[in-house]
């Protein structure tokens, strides 16, 4: 149930920490896992923890940037074809460019398997774990 003003965690190393949804693409209803959305970066990852160690990879996005993203976790439960339900404790996304490739190179955190059926298998392979 990600819609206008929803705050999401960004779980890649693009530099964004918290983003806000401003648009759900190709859908007239709230976004869920696998949906593409437009977000505004609200909070950057602190330079101290991530980027100063390897200064070559600076934050690729800044606060206030407008980017596309894919939802990878949703708090609202979703039903699998076999009837089972999956729910996460937070809403999370991964930033992508217009072509649909992830901006970050690494991801931390579990993602939903539903991404596979929706041409996001690259994100799925980057993720350390999927449910």
């Amino acid at each position, binding site marked *: 149930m990600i819609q206008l003003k929803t705050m999401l965690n960004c779980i890649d190393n693009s530099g964004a920490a918290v983003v806000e949804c401003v648009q759900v693409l190709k859908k007239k209803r709230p976004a869920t896992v696998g949906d593409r959305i437009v977000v505004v970066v609200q909070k950057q990852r602190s330079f101290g923890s991530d980027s100063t160690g390897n200064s070559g990879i600076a934050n690729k996005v800044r606060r206030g940037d407008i980017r596309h993203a894919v939802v990878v976790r949703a708090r609202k*439960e979703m039903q699998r074809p076999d009837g089972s339900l999956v729910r996460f*404790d*937070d809403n999370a996304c991964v930033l992508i460019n217009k072509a649909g490739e992830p901006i970050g190179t690494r991801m931390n955190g*579990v993602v939903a398997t539903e991404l596979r059926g929706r041409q996001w298998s690259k994100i799925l392979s980057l993720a350390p774990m999927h*449910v």
Partner: protein
Amino acid sequence: MANSSSILQQLGCVRSLFTTTTSRSTTLQTPMVGRRMLSTVYSAKPDPIPFPKGLPDQFYSQIPKRMRPDLAPKKLKIVPPPPAPQCKDAVAAVTQAQLKTLDPSGKRMRLFDYRRYARSVKPGDIIRVTFKNGDPFAGLVLSIKLRGADTSVLLRNQLTRVGVEMSVKVFSPNVESVEIVQRSEKRKRRARLYYMRQPRHDMGSVENLVTNYLRQKRALAGKKDRGNKKR
């Protein structure tokens, strides 16, 4: 009785005067409480005059439509009630039939029907479910929904520090095996442990317990046949 009623009658109600006393004696037994008009005195409905027989065809058009025998309203067709159902509770019968195919041995039912079997999975236990496609999911049982063939169990775990909940249909053919990793030491006083979602009560990840359990299981199995290692 007939006398007193005839006093009440007035000249206006001529029809009641003509009716026979024998037939009226029964109808007038009923007390006339609440009746205002004398003219509303009950009288039996007169029998309809039988339609004259042998009437020439040309007269039919002169008779009012509602009185014509050929245009009389048709008799309502009364459908007899359907026969009584063969089984009393059809839903229960269907459930039984489904369970017979999904769980022929009844093992799964015994594992989850906590109302009937004492050794079943209970809320608060940690179980590990393996699916047909190979990937397992382990978690704390928050609730068990007993709904016949649709019985499901809600599991909660933390993966990479993110809480994940999964509701699994127990009798689904996708579920290959269910193992109890750990039973809760104390009986929980709730049937639904939704409070375990709160950070204050959250159990955290159960992965350590599960790996320990798997190691033990492998050690036990290793005594029987070595070399059958998983992972």
